[in-house]
């Protein structure tokens, strides 16, 4: 059965990242990812969600997941009630983690923070 899109809409707070991790792992496991790859995805989701939300802000975080040929694609979109005091940046630490654990990612951090990432099964060892 085709999975299509799977969406999660939660408050923009780290306490809901666990739901995001479980959902991403659940969808990816249907795509045949191994445990190592699932852990990579979970680390990536943590980093990306944290990059968007930080320690938590008034707003919503929406994740959209799709199984694509040979991999998985995740999009995140955070909408906040107010503008950040200073623009968040993707830290060197986050860049190092993401560069290792996924095949491609893009983060746009402005008033409406967004990300897109792709991980392919072929990379799994």
């Amino acid at each position, binding site marked *: 059965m085709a999975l299509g899109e799977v969406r999660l809409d939660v408050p923009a707070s780290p306490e809901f990242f666990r739901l995001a991790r*479980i959902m991403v792992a659940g969808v990816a496991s249907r795509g045949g990812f191994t445990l*190592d790859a699932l852990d990579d995805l979970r*680390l990536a989701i943590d980093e990306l969600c944290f990059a968007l939300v930080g320690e938590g802000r008034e707003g919503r975080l929406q994740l959209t997941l799709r199984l694509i040929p040979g991999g998985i694609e995740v999009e995140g979109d955070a909408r906040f009630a107010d503008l950040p005091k200073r623009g968040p940046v993707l830290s060197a630490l986050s860049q190092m983690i993401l560069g290792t654990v996924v095949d491609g990612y893009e983060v746009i951090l402005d008033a409406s923070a967004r990300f897109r990432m792709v991980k392919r099964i072929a990379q799994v060892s």
Partner: protein
Amino acid sequence: MAVDRQDRAELQRLFREFAKSRDSALRDQLVSAHMGLAEHLARRLANRGEPVDDLIQVASLALLKAVERFDPERGLEFSTFATPTIVGELKRHFRDKGWAVRVPRRIQELHLRMGTVIGELTQREGRSPTVGEIAQATSASEEDVLEAIDAGHAYRLASLDAPGATGDENPLASRLGQEDPRLNESEQRATLLPLLEHLAERERLIVHLRFFEGKTQSEIAGALGLSQMHVSRLLARSLAELRAVAQHED
């Protein structure tokens, strides 16, 4: 002369000396001299379901970090600098513990069983197993397996019994062998290397192997004689700690 009897001027002198020498004996003296502050803050958060000894341990670790980061030239009182750090770590401890205890017992038990099963499957198949394979081997549902994988990721603070992050017990460099010259070519990695000093030795090695040498979690587990799930848990906790340190230093 015992440090806890020294006056403020003497402590300031010790901090200045430590800032120059980074001598671990001096650091320990400074930690001892301020243990009263750590215990005081830990006891303020007692009676909330966590053993006082655990809270003092968390506060002590935070105190150690604060001593290492304190810059005496800024003219700030050490207690003013250290209190937010210690209280922040204590709050994080409560948050993480609360998050962990909500995991149902059946999932906790499955998580423990999975440690052995994943090792056996990895050895048999020569690769990291899938969730379906783990579910079949443990007679659990895939949903429960997914939840159990996540259950191991309570980002708790490192125990004080764990190897120290700094100081004399630091054979890490010898275990890692020669520094990869490619590291020097990467400005990003050069920025991150000092950050790793905040981790205990084993965690630092795991982060290095995963992110600097590109080893998979299963490969690291095999190399260090740990289970994949243990490596996964240590890696997730280490990254959470690194993120907290990076934020603190921003």
